[in-house]
């Protein structure tokens, strides 16, 4: 069986980020970091994505959106929370409109801290997520049999 980790496509969603982490995520596509060498494509389409990469904490407006996009991704899938806001809510944690980190809404597999998270850290996090992805695929197949 083909390994999912050989061609992980990711979907990047900005839940309520200040755009710092978003810029770092886009940095990963540039020639210097080139995540395409791992076969990673930034698809922007949940139907085709394996990795859900979220920046920023969840607020009351994005909560339903995050849930829906997550539900539109086919199994196996992993969630990577990029930046401290996505991990815990960060400096906005106490705000009236912020629910907290992504894990308050959907299960998160990999946390990438930082403000903003460095591209190296993001790539590292994504590659860690790939291991989780493979494990999930194996589990799915075991269940299927």
């Amino acid at each position, binding site marked *: 069986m083909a390994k999912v980790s*050989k061609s992980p496509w990711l979907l990047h969603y900005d839940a309520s980020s200040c755009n710092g982490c978003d810029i770092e995520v886009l940095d990963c596509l540039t020639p210097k970091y080139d995540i395409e*060498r791992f076969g990673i*494509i930034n698809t922007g389409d949940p139907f*085709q994505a*394996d990795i859900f990469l979220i920046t920023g904490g969840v607020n009351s407006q994005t909560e339903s959106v995050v849930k829906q996009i997550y539900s539109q991704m086919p199994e*196996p899938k992993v969630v990577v929370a990029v930046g401290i806001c996505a991990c815990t809510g960060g400096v906005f944690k106490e705000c009236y409109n912020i629910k907290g980190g992504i894990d308050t809404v959907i299960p998160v597999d990999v946390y990438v801290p930082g403000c903003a998270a460095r591209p190296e850290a993001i790539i590292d996090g994504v590659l860690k997520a790939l291991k989780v992805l493979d494990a999930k695929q194996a589990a799915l197949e075991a269940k299927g049999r």
Partner: protein
Amino acid sequence: MVMKAIYVILFLIFAPFIGGLLDGIDRIISARMQRRKGPSIFQPFYDLGKLFSKEMIAVNNVQLLLNLSYLVILVIAGAMLFAGADLLMVLFILSTADMFLIMAASSDSSPYANMGASREMMQMMAYEPLTLLVAVGFYLTTGSFHVGTIIQQPVSAVLWMPGLLVGFMFTAAIKFRKSPFDLSTSHHAHQEMVKGITTEMSGTTLAIMNIAEYYEMVVILGIFFLFFVNSTWWSWIVALAICFVLFLMETLWDNISARLKWKTVLYGCWVVTLVAGGVNILILMLDK
């Protein structure tokens, strides 16, 4: 007869591999042009493997059916081309196949997929005249629409139809889904229309669509091949090499140009068709 069958079987088996490899090469070369390392050359196959292993989700029950029909009808068109059948018929079936793709995309009433489908129709409208003219050009040059006759000419058809070749190179970018004409779907990230025509396709459905695209790529290259081939054996090698070079040129063009607005695409293609194709046909008619 046996030869025909062999060609068809070779096409059926190897076309997706050739298409996939070309796609891999394309991705590496694009990456290198951008001073990136790029993925493995086998990346398209990894992608396909992954897509087939994913959970099946869909927005309705007909999309898979329509995508499968797209694939099969496209394969029939390709098989007819490689069996040496009528070129014009092949082109007609090719557009019928495309119709199934458009139906698949618009079957879900999703805004992005519908927009992609509309643009796909517009692209068809843009390239269709030239493909018909190419068939007419072959007919005028060789006296037959039959691929079997076209490849047995003493001289290559391109000598008579350079204008049509230029025009076909121009419009083939639409078929290869390359920039600047990559309006209906995109291999590049961050689009105003998400993934266009493929937005609602996931897993197996998308994999089928990709395989169909590989077949289509081979069919288009096959038509390029017809321009250069003649009755001598070495022309086959030359034609293959030229096809490869043409493909690389499409890659180059993809990388150095930005996407155009639809109007520019439509009028551009039509004008090129009229100037390069129409004049070429006129000269052929007067001469032959």
